[in-house]
């Protein structure tokens, strides 16, 4: 087998938008992971203003205002809404223990969210695009398996002690309760620690599905299927942190992530239905992360696989240095060796490391 090798080295500045790019030579594990908002990803948009109502009334107001903004069209233009129905109302019976150890069905209910978006498509003679409105809807849910760790219970207890009412004075009749406390440093630190370790030692399985359609000439009766997708992302983080009663000591994080995605794309002349399956292991310590990933694509004309090792260093809050080596999808006209050094600014693709 004749292999063509290419060596790419240089400085790349990534400023691409967070749209889904399914070109086989560009697809990476992060593109295949379950997205927070499937509708936005399938539409290939990164809306700057997303309505996230938290009460039933706010949902009604969002929908009503979107219809008013649509003008003469029956469909709202450039509208983005994401809503988690379970959290629209208060749940006084939902204790912390039940919330953090929800079981299968409750976990699905607690994490279920719906994303809806529309985007205006302008006519383009070069691509054959017709004028109209793109509409998408997606759903997402997740299952957090297992029980809380001892360390999570210890931090919860530390928080309970930190927030306990001060002093030994009983409440006085006909006087208002004390004011709300914001930004207490000790509580904030403990809460951050709690959120950092809440998935340690537990399987977290995210799933999503979505579909989009084009409404030609903004006519709701003329819809044409564009894209559909289904995602499944199981992940597991090794339990490595310790807590001494006051401070959380975090060891380097080790995550295992599996990905599966099926897409049905009718936006091209010939419809495609690729299925991607992959896995990644990530070691992350402070500002430095190493990962190895493997991704396979099947049910496509461009079946293939990608195996890569990636190093990432956070230089500053908005600047990341990355190095990627491995073997990419084989595409016509270029080799499959990956050897890329890059500088990524705080826009575009999300780095492994967080700000």
């Amino acid at each position, binding site marked *: 087998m004749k292999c063509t090798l290419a060596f790419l080295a240089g400085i790349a500045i990534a400023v691409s938008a967070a749209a889904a790019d399914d070109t086989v030579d560009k697809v990476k594990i992060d593109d295949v992971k379950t997205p927070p908002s499937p509708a936005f990803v399938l539409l290939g948009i990164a809306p700057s203003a997303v309505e996230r109502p938290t009460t039933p009334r706010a949902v009604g107001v969002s929908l009503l205002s979107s219809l008013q903004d649509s003008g003469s069209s029956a469909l709202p233009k450039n509208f983005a809404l994401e809503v988690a129905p379970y*959290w629209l109302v208060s749940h006084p019976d*939902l*204790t912390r223990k039940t919330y953090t150890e929800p079981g299968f069905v409750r976990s699905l209910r*607690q994490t279920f969210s719906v994303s809806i978006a529309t985007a205006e498509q302008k006519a383009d003679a070069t691509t054959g695009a017709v004028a109209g409105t793109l509409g998408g809807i997606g759903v997402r849910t997740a299952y957090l398996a297992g029980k809380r760790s001892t360390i999570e219970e210890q931090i919860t207890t530390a*928080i309970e*002690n930190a927030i306990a*009412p001060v002093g030994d004075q*009983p409440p006085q009749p006909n006087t208002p309760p004390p004011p709300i406390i914001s930004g207490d440093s000790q*509580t904030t630190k403990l809460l951050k620690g709690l959120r950092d370790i809440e998935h340690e030692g537990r399987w977290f399985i995210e799933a999503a599905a979505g579909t989009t359609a084009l409404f030609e000439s903004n006519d709701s009766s003329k819809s044409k299927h564009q894209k559909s997708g289904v995602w499944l992302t199981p992940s597991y983080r090794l339990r490595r942190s310790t807590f001494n009663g006051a401070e959380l000591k975090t060891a380097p994080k080790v995550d295992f992530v599996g990905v599966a995605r099926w897409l049905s794309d009718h936006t091209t002349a010939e419809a495609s239905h690729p299925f991607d399956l992959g896995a990644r292991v990530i070691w992350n310590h402070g500002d430095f992360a190493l990962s190895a990933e493997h991704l396979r694509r099947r049910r496509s004309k461009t079946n293939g696989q990608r195996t890569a090792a990636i190093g990432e260093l956070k230089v500053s809050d908005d600047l990341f240095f990355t190095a990627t080596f491995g073997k990419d999808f084989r595409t016509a006209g270029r080799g499959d060796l990956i050897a890329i050094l890059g500088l990524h600014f705080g826009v575009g693709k999300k780095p492994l490391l967080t700000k």
Partner: protein
Amino acid sequence: MADPRKIEKDYPVNGGPGPILLSIVIGDGQIGASKVFLGNTRIAKGAIQHLPIGVPDQLRGQTLGIRTNVLDANPQTNHTSVTFIVTGGAVVEHDTLTFDAPHDGDVIPYEAIFTFV
């Protein structure tokens, strides 16, 4: 207008199975801690579950005071809620107070006063 974070009520102690018990449920997946007072004396703190307050004859005329702080620790919602449950008297008192934290990570103080009659 009554403060949504405070409740003041009478609780009839006679005519029930006794003794009088108190439970406090912190809802919405949030984290909370309480201090419980009988008169001016603190009788418990922390998580409160079926806390014995006393027998009806001894409690009549006394006041049960509760101070509960709830941390908005749940990233999925800013709803916070506390349910005070008093049992053993003529009725099961089940009072829920709810309040939305203005910011993620805020601590919301709640208070309850039950006068035993």
